Every structure is written in structure tokens, then in C-alpha cells.
């Protein structure tokens, strides 16, 4: 990233927020008073935030600060992996389909349609039955569907770009398909790709929360923001901090990603005239 971009507050502020959250998720557990899965038998169950437990404890007496940090690791990892998958597969798939058009396009987009039509929960349960319950399956399941939107959007943009004179100019200068796609088409997709990617991150985090909520995702004592929110919501009248802290981090992260995506698109869109 160019340093000039970081001087724009609309980019620097959300980037800094995200950096802090990532640092907290990575290093936070070492700062916590006890490991995330240990029970503090001296503390009350569901204790309010205090010096000993900055975010309070959950209904089993586990330190919530440690649990929010550890949960963040999984939620952020899910967001990151699904975004990388959607960038890698989605852009390639969509750009190739849009560029070649005709039968190639028809076949490739029907594959996307079929995956879309497949009920997601059915797909996840099928994976669980086939491979047993494993953390890795969350990534596989979310990764498998996260690139579909990207592929569709990229294909649409590629179709529009194909009619641009500079693409014709690249064709008549004798460049091959691969060179045109990599040098001329994909860089011009950057704006929509970034927006789509920043939407993919929160979406994946939410899907993981949903899977965990149904008991198909992460299993105790391991946790994620989604699982923590779920636990906290059940006892929110008695111990609101159990909901407030994980939900606060979730919302702040999603907000920062959306904000960053919007600012990046505005900054990276090349002036055309």
C-alpha cells in the first residue's frame, strides 16, 4: 500500500482500528489473568468487570477478556480465509468467464448458479457427516460459497470492460488473452473487488456465528465472537457484559471493514479524464 493512502484519515482510522483488534486477538490472551478455558473458582459466576477480570467472567467463571481475544482469532481468521478464497477463485472465475464469453461463460456461470442453489445448511451438514466435526470444515464450508458473489460481480464488470476502447487497443496491439486479463482487465476491476471483499469479511464472520449458534461451528471450550454473542444473549438481563464486549468487537470490526473498503475504493479508483 502506498504511504500516501495512509495519510488519508478515512483510510488510516479504520486501518488503525483493525490493526488494534488484530493485535489484541493475537497477543491479548497473554495479557489476560488466566487462560481462556480456565475457571476462576474465587470469582463469582458471571462476575461484573473488575480489575481482576476487565470484561467480567462468563457463567462458568471463565475470564471474558481472554475469551473475547481468543474468539477474535477464529472470527478474524474465518473472515480472512474466506476473503482470500473469494479473491483467488472469484476473480479468476469471473474474469475468465466474462472475457471469453459464449459457451465458456455459460458453463462457468451455470456452475456458480448450481452452487448458489445448493442449500447452504444442507451442504454444511453433508460435510460434517462425511468428514466428521472439525474446525477446518468451517473454513471449507464458508470458503466454498464466499467466492460466488465475487465471481458474478467480476464477470459483470469484465463484460462491461470488454467494450472499452483501451481493451480493444490492447487486443489490436497483439497482446494475448492472459496478458490482457492480468494487465488490463483485473486492475480495472479493483474498485468493485475491494468493495466486494470488504463485504465478504463481515459476511463470513456472521456465517461462522450462525454455524456456531446451531452447534455446527466451533465447539466448547474453543470459541468465536459469534459463539460468545450467543452465550451472552442468553443471560443478557443478568450479565449484560457477556453480550456487550463480544458484540462490541464484532460490530466495530465489521464497521471498520466497511469503512475501509469504501475509502479505499474512492482512493484507488483511477481518474479517467
Amino acid at each position, binding site marked *: 500500500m502506498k504511504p500516501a493512502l495512509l495519510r488519508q484519515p478515512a483510510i488510516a482510522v479504520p486501518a488503525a482500528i483493525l490493526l488494534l483488534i488484530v493485535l489484541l486477538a493475537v497477543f491479548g490472551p497473554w495479557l489476560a489473568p488466566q487462560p481462556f478455558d480456565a475457571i476462576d473458582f474465587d470469582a463469582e459466576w458471571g462476575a461484573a468487570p473488575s480489575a481482576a477480570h476487565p470484561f467480567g467472567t462468563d457463567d462458568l467463571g471463565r475470564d471474558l477478556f481472554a475469551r473475547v481475544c481468543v474468539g477474535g482469532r477464529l472470527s478474524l481468521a474465518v473472515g480472512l480465509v474466506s476473503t482470500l478464497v473469494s479473491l483467488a477463485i472469484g476473480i479468476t472465475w469471473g474474469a475468465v468467464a466474462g472475457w471469453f464469453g459464449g459457451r465458456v461463460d455459460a458453463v462457468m456461470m451455470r456452475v456458480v448458479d448450481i452452487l448458489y442453489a445448493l442449500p447452504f445448511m444442507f451442504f454444511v451438514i453433508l460435510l460434517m457427516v462425511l468428514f466428521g466435526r472439525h474446525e477446518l470444515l468451517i473454513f471449507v464450508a464458508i470458503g466454498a460459497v464466499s467466492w460466488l458473489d465475487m465471481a458474478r460481480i467480476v464477470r459483470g464488470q469484465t463484460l462491461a470492460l470488454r467494450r472499452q*476502447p483501451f481493451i480493444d487497443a490492447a487486443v*489490436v496491439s497483439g497482446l*494475448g488473452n492472459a496478458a490482457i486479463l492480468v494487465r488490463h482487465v483485473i486492475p480495472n476491476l479493483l474498485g468493485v473487488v475491494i468493495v466486494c471483499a470488504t463485504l465478504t469479511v463481515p459476511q463470513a464472520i456472521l456465517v461462522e456465528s450462525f454455524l456456531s449458534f446451531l452447534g455446527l461451528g466451533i465447539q466448547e471450550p474453543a470459541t468465536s465472537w459469534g459463539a460468545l454473542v450467543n452465550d451472552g444473549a442468553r443471560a443478557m438481563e443478568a450479565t449484560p457484559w457477556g453480550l456487550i464486549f463480544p458484540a462490541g468487537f464484532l460490530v466495530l470490526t465489521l464497521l471498520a471493514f466497511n469503512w475501509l473498503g469504501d475509502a479505499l475504493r474512492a482512493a484507488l479508483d483511477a*481518474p479517467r479524464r
Partner: protein
Amino acid sequence: MSLLTVDALRVRHRAVTVLDGVSFAIAAGESLGLVGESGSGKSQTALAVLGLLPATATVEGSIRFRDEELRGAGRAQLDRVRGSRIAMVFQDPMSSLNPYLRIGVQMAEVLQQHRGSSRAAALHDAARLLDAVRISDPRRRLTQYPHELSGGMRQRVLIAMALLAQPELLIADEPTTALDVTVQAEVLAVLDDLRRDLGLALLLITHDLGVVSGNCERMAVMYAGRIVEAGNTADVLTRPAHPYTAALLATRPVLEGPRPIRLPSIAGQPPDPARRPQGCAFSPRCQQVMPICQTHAPVLRQQRDRSCACHVGDEPLLPTDGAADRNFA
């Protein structure tokens, strides 16, 4: 031996025939102006030569470049010819450069592709050509993005880019339409100089008779997907043989003498390509229309270095078959 020979080129988009037997030839180092109003098929001709028509178009006839048949050629064959032996300059300099790539990178790409040059060598050549198209401070321009240059500069960059791989034929599709008149003159002067220096053949597509008269040795006039008249530029402009050419010339504003209240124009509209009239396509607008014009399309016939497709002035002659059509413009 002609460099480019287009023979009986016919292009259809589904049921609509946009080119209806276009034939012309360009010799090495020669400049041919292709003139006509919007929709007459000028650009379609250029796109057909370069294989840029959409896959749904039907192309018949022959497009020979030296000894190579380009009609129906595969992508690999076209890629060897395009850019390195035939280059093209597009109409709109604003959108013909990739906004995300520096000028130098875009220019170097062509040489890296066709000559296998290193990036450094390619950039060196690019700077040399920017200098040739009279762009100041070429080294710095190479590091700039398209939006940092003016329209005239961008069009010159496109010309430099087209000439990088030293093509034998340059196709320029309305290269100056998007530019204002002073910049237009500058760009045309650059193009003309370079053409002479490099011995380049030029196919210049325009609707501007002034541009043709200043830049082309020969010209061909298109109407409704056909060439109606062709010959030496000066001859055609001073002694037009076809009523359409004559009518076009009559529409030019006069700079001397009493000014007419309205500029003269050709009455009527060019025919809808989907519903061309029977006979000569110009007959509904022609001042000298004869009964035969409405039943039989005239063929392009050559007399010395001039060809014309019109019944007027000919001994009444019924067209035989396609054979007479083969006279090249």
C-alpha cells in the same frame, strides 16, 4: 504488389448487412482515406481488417495482408500480425489508454510482446517515439498516468504506441474527431511526417473531407456499406464523378463570397441498413436519379485510376454478375 487487399468484403450482423462488397487495396507506403457519413461502414471495414468484429458477425470475401489471408484467421495468427505489422489508432484518446497503467508500461508492453525486448530497452524506444510525435520531456511522460495528459497528447501517445513495433500499415479510425481544430492539425502533421519518414501505409478513416485532402494520396467514398467512388484525392475532390461525392462537396461551407443563409445539405436520410432500397442505395436522395437506378445497383467500374459506381454518364448497362465488382478502388 499491394500491402493490403480487401476484396468483396461483406459483413452481416444477423440479418443486417453493414458492408456489401467492399473492395480496395493499399500499396506499401501509400495513404488511403476512407470517407463517408456515420453508418456508411468505414469503421466496420477497419474492424473487419483487424478481426475485431464480434464473433456473431458473418464476414465474407477476402482480406489479404501481403500473402496472408486474415479473414477467418485464428487468434494466434492475428496476434502475430496485429500490433507488429498492422497497428491501429482509435477514435477516442480519452478511453483508449488504460487508466491504471503508466504511459511507459503500456507502451513497453507492445515491444515486450512482439520483440521480446527487455523493459529497459522497450522504455528507451518508447521515449524515442514520444519524442518523434513531439511530446516534450518524454522520459517524464513515461512515468505519468493517462489522466495527467491532455487529449491531444494522449492521441499522440496512442500514435507513438501504434508505431512502436514498426508496423507496415497503420489504420487510424477518426484519429482527430475528439480533438479541437488546432490540436487536430498538430496531430495530423505529426502523423503525416512520421508516415513519410517510416514509409508507412496509412488507412485513414474520417468523415472530414479537409482531413483527407491534406493527408491522403488516394481516397474512397463510402455510402451504405459500399464504396461508391475512389481515386486520387485531388481528382476526386475537384472533379467528383459520383453524385453522392458531388453532393458531399456541395455541403462544405464557403469562406469567400456571399454566404448562403443555410448550409446546403443532402436531402433525406442514409438508408436503414436493414431496409436498403432496391437498386442504388443513394437513388432516393440522388438529384440525377434515373429509372434504372431504382431497379439495378450500379457496379464499381474502373477507368484509369478512378472508379465510380453510378449509372449516370454510363451507357445504360445492365450489371452482369459479381465479376465486374472486382475492380479495386
